[in-house]
């Protein structure tokens, strides 16, 4: 983080209110306090985020006294930059357009992200300092060699870097760190009662944007979220883990990956993430 702050002209830190970006904020505090962060926080809001997470996001930003920039997908849709095939379609994959427009508008040359290599196989091949061309594209065949702790931050106009400081952390590392540092997380990360429908192997939360389909039975279950992305593609898991310590224990014993248990968007094709990343996705 200090290296980016020293070498890049205009960085920003992606903060969604999710667990990985909560860790990122603590790391930024450790890197820079008592200074203010030498970059703003940035959130790409699909308009379909869990309200608990948005409340948490705004409160955390206030507590830190830092500046938050929001790139709004509703705005992209209004301006015709994003066109949905049907109104109910998941907005997840379309975020890239809002993200790239926001990068261009603010002339960001580096974005910190909380992505981890253990999440997904195309992430597993991505550098810590990941170069994106003027179209925001990741080119897996043409990555810069990354040796020791020497990071090449040189860019041409309109190019930018995505920087992933916790690349080598696992889901368990993240929860252990949150528990150790006693970091607050949005309440939906801990076990709570919620209306869901069973869809395949997944539990689909019943929300305004994800109503039950015809013939589906709504049931109340004790659940928690392992990830808190867009509401239309993020599913909770059955859980009784109501404290951070219990989440750590449950994570250590888990036998299904984070994305496999919770994400609809990665289940359509074996390589969905790779394709999205080539389009400029996080």
């Amino acid at each position, binding site marked *: 983080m200090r290296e980016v702050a020293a070498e890049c002209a205009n960085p920003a830190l992606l903060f969604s209110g999710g667990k990985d970006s909560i860790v990122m904020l603590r790391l930024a505090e450790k890197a820079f306090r008592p200074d203010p962060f030498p970059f703003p926080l940035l959130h790409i809001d699909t308009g379909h985020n869990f309200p608990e997470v948005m409340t948490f996001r705004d409160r955390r930003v206030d507590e830190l006294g830092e500046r938050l920039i929001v790139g709004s997908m509703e705005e992209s849709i209004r301006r015709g930059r994003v066109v949905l095939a049907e109104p109910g379609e998941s907005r997840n994959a379309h975020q890239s357009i809002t993200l790239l427009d926001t990068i261009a508008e603010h002339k960001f040359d580096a974005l910190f992200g909380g992505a981890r290599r253990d999440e997904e196989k195309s992430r597993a091949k991505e550098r810590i300092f990941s170069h994106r061309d003027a179209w925001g594209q990741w080119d897996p065949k043409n990555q810069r060699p990354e040796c020791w702790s020497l990071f090449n931050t040189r860019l*041409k106009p309109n190019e930018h870097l995505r920087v992933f400081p916790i690349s080598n952390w696992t889901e368990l590392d993240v929860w252990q760190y949150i528990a150790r540092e006693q970091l607050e997380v949005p309440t939906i990360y801990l076990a709570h009662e919620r209306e869901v429908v069973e869809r395949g192997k997944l539990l689909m939360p019943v929300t305004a944007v994800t109503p039950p389909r015809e013939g589906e039975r709504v049931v109340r279950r004790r659940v928690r979220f392992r990830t808190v992305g867009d509401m239309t593609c993020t599913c909770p898991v059955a859980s009784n883990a109501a404290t951070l310590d219990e989440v750590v224990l449950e994570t250590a014993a888990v036998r299904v990956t984070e994305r496999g248990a919770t994400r609809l968007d990665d289940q359509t094709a074996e390589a969905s993430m790779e394709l999205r990343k080539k389009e400029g996705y996080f």
Partner: protein
Amino acid sequence: MSAEVTSLTTSIDTLRFSTAGSVDDGKSTLIGRLLFDAQGILEDQLAILKGATIKHGHVDAGEPIDFSLLTDGLIAEREQGITIDVAYRYFTSAKRRFIIADTPGHEQYTRNMVTGASTAHLTIILVDATRGLTMQSRRHAAIAGLLKIPHVVVAINKMDLVGYAEDTFVRLRGEFAPFLAQLAFVEVTFIPVSALKGEMLANRGTSMAWFKGQTLLETLETTQAHQAVEQPFRFAVQRVARSKFGEKSDLRGYQGRLDGGALAVGEDVVVLPSMAQAKIHSIQTYAGPITRANAGEAVTIVLDRQIDVSRGDMLVKPSVGGHGGVGLGTAPVVADRFVADLCWLDTTPLDLNRRYWIKHTTRSTRAVVESIAYRLNVETLDKTVETLPKIQANDIARVTVVCQRPLVFDAYADNRATGCFILIDDTTNRTVAAGMIHGANK
């Protein structure tokens, strides 16, 4: 936090290891199988793997899962049946956490190997028992030696295809050991394995009762991850804090990481290259001031007086009775010219007429490669002296580098962090070389 949670992983350390080998050595199968046997593959990953095996797999009869597909993740890789780039994998055993850098072994071999192995404690060299030693086995060992990776495991794989014959293992070990001995590793371990059958990885199996050594997993669990070598204090200034410190709020804080040694409040330091001197006023962290910082820690150092310090400068301790800045003893070298081993990583060859950017610690400046002493033949370790040498991708050469501004460095053998550098092409912005400093040019 409960004791149970604390003991989960915080009490165990992490070993970073890399693997390399050509496609046919069974490297991906070895990693996939090791992860599977160590319960490092989760149920949904296994289900995907089984599906992929039916679709793309190449399996021998009786093995329902093609483990090599676990590490070959990208669409282009599966289409072409190759591995494009370094992939990182994570697993935890009862004794340790592991970070694997899985480096592909055909094209761009040196590039991937240097990326994957530059921070490794251990590297696994795969040798196919049916084919014996190859150019790649030697190349891998030579690069691991240059990078000063302390531990090497030679896994003689596909033992199932040679009837688990002890004499094959002994013969290959005998052929490879003298070559490895020239590279000064801390430890070299030979293990016969069958990645396909899962023998001598996490489980011993029953076919090689003649082998009395540790399994691969046992070796990974017991290898010493950190050398307890006392290094002199090194602190490259990464960033100057905006906040001011001290009673009168007139003192600046310098952010960075200790790349060696330890530091306590009140100690004297020298700023290089300016040679200005100061005392440590305080050491700041997010959790408040501390009185002492150790190697590897990232801190903010506050000096007791206002002197000119900026990013790229290095704080060191004054050498006792030394002659300041000369020699590679406790004081680092301050010089604009040095001799180094260069791994060329780019498809465009080294050009002696070109100016490159050099990045070393936190300092960037212009540099030229003034001359080439020799090119290293990685198969024989011979030093090839040519009249008009051409250094291209995957070549390793001993060169003299001249910089626009002086660097503050140690020999790579003494301190990896202050002895390594990269070269960047100023037109393409590509990282074209990784270098390891041998010493100042006399």
